[in-house]
């Protein structure tokens, strides 16, 4: 679906200010990227703002994309995730300070368990056995951090554990994940 060579070609044409290529790139990647932003932000209006912001930036900065700097989808995913994470942190500060009941409602998390996504990713990458070997709390921390964007303190509150334990789980989990993913290189 996201053929790196085809996306590379589209990005090269976008750098030359080819509007049709820009639209094709958007049609090919925007749904996946909106899914990523929506999973982190939970609010469609914010997720669509992030997507819009990221693509406006792609039009301006496509010339700065280098094929040797990773696949186009990795570049685009990072662009969207970084914006979403910044907004998520800012929104959480705002919501935590807000007395608006709508904000409290938004804080109730009804998204499916992110562990399921990590397992799906592991299956897709043929790394299921390696990732299943990561201890439960470490795996849960990784999934909640990556798919839901939870910070250390939010992870601690969510799991009912001290921040110190969460940091240790994450550190060990990242190390284990790194070893699993090294098999992909």
């Amino acid at each position, binding site marked *: 679906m996201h053929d790196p060579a085809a996306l590379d070609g589209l990005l090269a044409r976008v750098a030359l200010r080819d509007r049709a290529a820009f639209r094709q790139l958007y049609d090919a990647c925007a*749904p996946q990227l*909106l899914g990523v932003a929506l999973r982190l932000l939970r609010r469609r209006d914010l997720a669509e703002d992030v*997507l819009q912001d990221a693509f406006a930036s792609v039009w301006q900065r496509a010339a700065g994309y280098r094929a040797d700097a*990773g696949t186009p989808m990795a570049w685009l995913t990072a662009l969207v995730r970084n914006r979403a994470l*910044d907004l998520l942190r800012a929104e959480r500060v705002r919501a935590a300070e807000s007395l608006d009941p709508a904000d409290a409602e938004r804080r109730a998390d009804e998204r499916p368990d992110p562990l399921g996504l990590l397992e799906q990713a592991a299956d897709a990458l043929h790394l299921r056995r390696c990732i299943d070997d990561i201890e439960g709390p470490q795996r849960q921390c990784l999934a909640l951090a990556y798919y839901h964007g939870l910070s250390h303190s939010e992870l601690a509150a969510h799991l009912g554990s001290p921040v110190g334990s969460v940091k240790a789980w*994450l550190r060990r989990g*990242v190390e284990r994940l790194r070893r699993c993913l090294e098999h992909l290189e």
Partner: protein
Amino acid sequence: MNGAEHPAGRYGNPELLDRLAAAYVLGTLGRLSRRRFERLVRSREPAARALKKWESHGAALAAVVPPVQPSSAVWRGIERRTGLGAPASCRWAGWLRPALGFACGLLLTVGVARLQPDWIVSANLPPQAVLPASYVGLLTDADGRPAALASSRRRGADLSVKLLQPLALPASQVAVLWALPKDRAPFRLGVLQAAPKQMLKMSDTSEALLSEVDELGVSFEPSADAAGPSDGFVLRGHCVKLW
């Protein structure tokens, strides 16, 4: 610990860079640490390499997230912010749009240059010193209204800019004027002030800088030395060689 420190300092340690890159991509770094790591990536190639590796891992993990179709408002917003949508006065359907959009902008620019020469030629110069401008750019706002006029003589390095409506400059930002060449990234021409008439000193003659430039654009930036436009253009328009 000091004895074991890497010769290139703390950030010369590949393991530390790898851990930081992983935490950055996973999103577990705090806001300040994120900014610090971004600066590190810009200044150190090993940090950029570590980040690239983890961004690829991250994209592999993100690929299983179910896609969600964006509403049509998202693309319209992108068109508005990048200046890709046709101006209001040039809305034509179908395949005619790109050609007619260009023609409308060009005619508007040339028309202004012919009908309002006083917008282009400085009224402060003595008549014998006044030569027609060679490069003229007419920038319009998001609604297609003329907003700024830039002009320069072919062998001159001064770019005269007239604001036809005030710049709605956000606090602590500057308005940067960019040249948009046909097949290269935009480059900076200078910073616009709030004054209705102003003169920018370019780094070379307009013939050297603008001969391959199709369009000019203005974006709001946090600092005057922005390397490229960081967001959409607030004003944009064709740049043409007239004489």
